[in-house]
């Protein structure tokens, strides 16, 4: 192994390497726990995302259909004009929560639904179809807002999971085996050197005794 050869085989080096392995092992164990917890959180949010997506999009498509009826009946220009007159003051209350260092948004259910009068377009020139369209979009928007929170959470948790998984794998399959390999190499070299020393000493001793 290339790295094994670049390190000088000394006791000091061996101690240093053993310390590095134990840090890597500790890091691995903790990141593995984090990874498992992230998988759990990811699955949990995914379960919610699937349902919320289906519900929100169904509602949105219904709203689109009513809108195209409205375009056809009232006229596109007239509808767009009414939309321009509409009161558009929707506010969202957004805060955050933290899941293992990941910041995810929390959006309060917005007060989207209102009655025809509160919408602000002139009721003389508009048809009831416009009210219906508005109501449909209000409801679709309410579901989309909730879905946005869940989807953003899913992406954020998924991204962190991906990163953590990469780290865990790098430790488990690359760094730790490499360090262990190097430790083995140095231990063997040290043993070998010790044996060589021992034979050398024995030989010196024999020579010295012969001379006596």
């Amino acid at each position, binding site marked *: 192994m290339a790295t094994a050869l670049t390190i000088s085989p000394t006791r000091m080096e061996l101690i240093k390497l053993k310390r590095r392995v134990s840090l890597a092992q500790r890091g691995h164990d903790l990141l593995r726990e984090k990874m498992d917890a992230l998988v759990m959180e990811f699955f949990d949010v995914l379960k919610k995302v699937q349902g919320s997506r289906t519900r929100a999009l169904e509602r949105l498509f219904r709203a689109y259909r009513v809108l195209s009826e409205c375009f056809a009946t009232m006229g596109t220009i007239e509808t767009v004009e009414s939309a321009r007159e509409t009161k558009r003051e929707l506010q969202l209350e957004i805060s955050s929560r933290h*899941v293992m260092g990941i910041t995810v948004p929390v959006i309060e259910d917005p007060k989207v639904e209102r009655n025809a009068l509160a919408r602000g377009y002139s009721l003389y020139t508009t048809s009831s179809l416009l009210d219906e369209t508005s109501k449909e979009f209000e409801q679709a928007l309410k579901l989309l807002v909730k879905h946005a929170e869940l989807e953003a959470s899913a992406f954020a948790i998924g991204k962190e999971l991906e990163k953590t998984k990469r780290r865990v794998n790098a430790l488990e399959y690359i760094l730790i085996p490499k360090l262990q390999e190097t430790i083995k190499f140095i231990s063997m070299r040290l043993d070998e050197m010790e044996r060589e020393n021992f034979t050398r000493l024995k030989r010196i001793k024999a020579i010295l005794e012969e001379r006596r």
Partner: protein
Amino acid sequence: MDRLIKLELSRLNVHLPEKRMTLREALSSSKPEVMTRNGGKHALNREELEFLAGLLPEKNWNELQLPILIAFEPKFGKSAARISGKAGAYVVSKILDKEEAEELLIYRPEVAILRKKLPTTTQYVFIG
């Protein structure tokens, strides 16, 4: 790579609160939230707070520190987590239908249930 490990390890618990908040404080706050170590804000959900208030006798509301910490410590066995603190262990034992104890040891499936019920009023800690 060693530096990277150290960085990851230092990042593990940055979401923890600088200072926790008691259930009573949280309930009386109009916008209950704790500051995290990395300067973020972590909001506590009111429905969860009310759920907790229903589980714990009112005289003990001062003792429950929020968020409740779910501590993973691989040294003491993988996939097991500790809940420390009498009041915290008490409410968790109620939720998971376990025997009461001063300190509770719970397993991953139980952690999943707990997290589902208390997504903002519990938090993970990793101790190495």
